[in-house]
């Protein structure tokens, strides 16, 4: 039970961080003091829930929020 709550809290925290800038999971793991493997899983869940998304330069991948992605996408495409 407590684990579930912690996870929801963690998800919330992750989204707050993602809303600021695109992150590499490893860096975010350091900031949030969680294991990278654990964070990998949670990030996958957030992506599956449609709350987070990948952003790629072609050679490197970052994770960001859905909103941030749309915003960046707009900026990128120049509208």
């Amino acid at each position, binding site marked *: 039970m407590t684990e579930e709550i912690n996870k929801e809290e963690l998800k919330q925290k992750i989204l707050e961080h993602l809303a600021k800038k695109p992150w590499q999971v490893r860096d975010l793991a350091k900031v949030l003091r969680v294991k990278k493997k654990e964070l990998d899983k949670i990030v996958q869940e957030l992506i599956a829930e449609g709350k987070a998304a990948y952003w790629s330069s072609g*050679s490197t991948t970052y994770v960001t929020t859905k909103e941030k992605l749309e915003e960046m996408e707009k900026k990128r495409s120049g509208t």
Partner: protein
Amino acid sequence: MPVVDGVELPETPLLDELEKGPWPSFVKEIKKTAIEQEKAMKAGKKIKLPGAAKGLLKVLELAYKDKRTHWKHGGIVSVIGYGGGVIGRYCDLEDQIPEVWHFHTIRINMPAGWFYTTKALRTICDVWEKWGSGLTNFHGSTGDIILLGTRTEYLQPCANALAYADQLYGGVPFDIGGSGSDLRTPSACMGPALCEFACYDTLKACYEFTMRYQNELHRPMWPYKFKIKCSGCPNDCVAAKARSDFAIIGTWKDEIQIDQEAVREYAKVIDIEEHVVKKCPTKAISWDGKELKINNRECIRCMHCINVLPKALKPGKERGATILIGGKAPFVDGAIIGWVAVPFIPENELIEKCCEMLEAIWEWWDEEGKFRERVGELIWRKGMDEFLKVINQKADVRMVYAPRNNPFIFWRELNE
């Protein structure tokens, strides 16, 4: 405006220069696509990006005229469940040339060894004619099929059309390949399917890695990219040693097989002394006009003699592969050749041993690697001895840092 086959093409005096000369020209190909696209449209085919190839000609012409690129870098990956495979690109001439404002690239996982049926090729072309520019690149530097140029909103429908091609219209389904910080689409030479030098089944290995590591291929989670390439022999036709973090190079342990009769046949048309004996880098060969002898202890498996006398010489019978680690081809520093990680794995153990090793390497690299640090750079930073512990290998004199160098394992000690 020049008119070809009833299709008007934009004026492109600068690009036209690149059509001159006897070699193939991408300008010619883009023009052809522009013409085909318009014909298909007139024939009533559904096409989502009309004029994309024409638009590309306009952008390129303008780029030459303005002496600057009109492309922008970076972008989205919006195929559900995938974190790679799409390279987002935009043009900064939205108002002038809206046809190519979005020009995203999709990497499609090619079949091992690049063998296709015409039906499979037709599937890809039909899907791309509808959902993209119609321009393809068989194949890109990673080995993938490259579909050049589509809009963000068509990425998902295009991926679906390819993934469910069999159910949707009896085509051959294809999956998206790798890009970003993930396992890149594994690639292999055509190996035993076409080539008698193959020392292991490169196609099978490539297929196994692809199927087993779908998660690693599609959901990027590593510090940077990771490439696996399989070459059947030291000729290394996929340039695995310089272009992949994990290169599997076929080799043999025993003696080069010699058919003396066939050597004597060759001797009638080739100067064996000049073109074989003298060219052996370790002077391992002798020829008395009747019999060719090879001192296999000296042979470094360079393939030269076998390549020159393919009918007479063959790799030995005890076959397998050498694993090289850490190769990469960055723009600025130039190619870095992989280092020997395992000198020899017999063919029948090869795939399993590689998988064990790959999983151990990924775990270590994922823990220890810095942002955008390839596994070779991590070994560089941490030392070969630590890496050997990760893959559970003993140091070996063949693990040299570079040719004609001391064995790698001493290199770090020397520096300390």
